[in-house]
């Protein structure tokens, strides 16, 4: 059963008289437990697509089916309840948290809103979530400003898995991190996927990152999807000019062994 099916999705922005087709007739699908890497140059519309999918932006045209429901038809309390199934991790490790939040409150919100566990068990669940992403339970009392960027992204991942979603959208989720930390976070994401069968829509402009985690890759250029295919095929034998340009921008990508460092695809 297909988890997510996006059909003919379009979104235009008009800013200062100039009209931009940020997302132009995009269709794609995602299977349970699968990672789709979405790659494209800056301004190609990746974030816009992710934000429409997360219902943070309205679409102009097109449809989205998610878990056999018309995802764009949901609204109000229905939508809020169903949001538990689709979560997101943001790029900006600082901006994605209320500056007044504590680690505990960041993780408590989803547990409370979706009544994941009874109130009395929430501290235990928060400790379990922290443990699952590799942080000590004692971090719960810290202010979100008192933890490092990599740790913050672990907390963001813990928040995303708190509601037991079937899909997590990651918009440049490791781009702001150090290369050494980046590998550890990718490893964690892959582990979580194998353990819980979560699907990822992994947005990045960095093919090296996507090669490490993706089963399939979709290439975006100026709002359009120019190419979709199995990861190895797209990287070794790109068909569209946009894909070729992206691959040539990373010189060692093709000569390196094609197995990702964390998994055989």
């Amino acid at each position, binding site marked *: 059963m297909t988890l997510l099916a996006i059909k003919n999705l379009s979104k235009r922005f008009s800013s200062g008289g100039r009209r931009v087709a940020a997302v132009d007739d995009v269709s794609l699908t995602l299977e349970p437990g699968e990672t789709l890497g979405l790659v494209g140059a800056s301004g190609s519309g990746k974030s816009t697509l992710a934000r429409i999918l997360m219902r*943070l932006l309205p679409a102009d045209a097109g449809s989205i089916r998610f878990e056999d429901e018309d995802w764009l038809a949901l609204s109000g309390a229905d939508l809020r309840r169903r949001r*538990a199934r689709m979560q997101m991790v943001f790029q*900006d490790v600082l*901006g994605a948290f*209320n*500056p007044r939040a504590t680690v505990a409150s960041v993780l408590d919100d989803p547990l409370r809103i979706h009544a994941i566990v009874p109130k009395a068990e929430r501290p235990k669940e928060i400790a379990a979530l922290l443990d699952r992403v590799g942080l000590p339970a004692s971090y719960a009392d810290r202010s979100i*400003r008192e933890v490092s960027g990599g740790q913050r992204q672990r907390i963001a991942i813990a928040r995303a898995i708190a*509601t037991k979603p079937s899909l997590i959208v990651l918009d440049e989720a490791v781009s702001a991190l150090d290369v050494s930390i980046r590998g550890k976070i990718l490893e964690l994401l892959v582990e979580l996927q194998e353990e819980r069968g979560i699907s990822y829509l992994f947005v990045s402009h960095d093919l090296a990152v996507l090669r490490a985690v993706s089963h399939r890759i979709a290439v975006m250029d100026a709002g359009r999807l120019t190419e979709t295919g199995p990861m190895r095929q797209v990287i070794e034998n790109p068909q569209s000019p946009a894909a070729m340009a992206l691959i040539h921008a990373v010189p060692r990508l093709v000569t390196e062994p094609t197995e990702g460092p964390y998994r055989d695809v």
Partner: protein
Amino acid sequence: MRLVRHLVRTPEGAIGLAILAALVLVALFAPVLSPGDPLRIAGRALLPPFADPAFPLGTDRLGRDVLAGILHGTRTSLAVGLAAALAAIAIGLCVGLTAGFAGGLVDEGLMRVVDAFQIVPSFLLALAFVSVIGASVPVVVLAIALGAWADPARLTRAQVLSIRERDYVASARVIGMHPAEIALREILPNALPPVLALSAIIVAAAILTEAALSFLGLGDPNVVTWGSMIAEGRNILRSSPSLSIFPGIALVVTVVGVYLFSEGLTKALAGRRLEP
């Protein structure tokens, strides 16, 4: 509190806080420091200052104690200034939050009203309001607030509009938080600090406006105010300048104190934001 520690670490904040604390104490204990009605005739008329220990700052044309007037005037100035600023901030917050959250036509409409109030000089507005309705403390407070709420409204709206676009608000929507909770818990607390920093300046302006209204005879005639004392002394400015000078000094000290406090507050808020 962390903010207070930051505040007293800046020289402006420390001096401003000290002046304001002294003024508040004077205002609270005015009936103890100088018992009785400050408007009553207490002694010989036009006693010069520093002559009679019973009247350190002398008496006015009717024989009223100048020191008593200044001590009790502190109450009026601070009370009217604070009440007017509080009312202005409250109105401004409500309008700014509504405009920022509602958007669309509501936002357009409210902002045109804000424009209108910003174009009319606030003192003229207060003047007109008091002349029409009549002078009493609540009317004066309302009149001053009416001319001062537009700035906090505009600032609050701008804050809401900018914070609404932050990732952490998107993140709150993504986990399914109710819009009302997003407004109250995610946006409002982060939108408030600059508006609060602005409130000190509004207090200073309100104190000056109140003094100006009293000076023109549009203050509440039943309470003593610095403005009305200055106006009283103006007629005999050549022979007894001290009658206008002492309340004038009180006014200047108060306004400078409030300004220093607001400067310190702004710096403290900025410093706190810079902290890791």
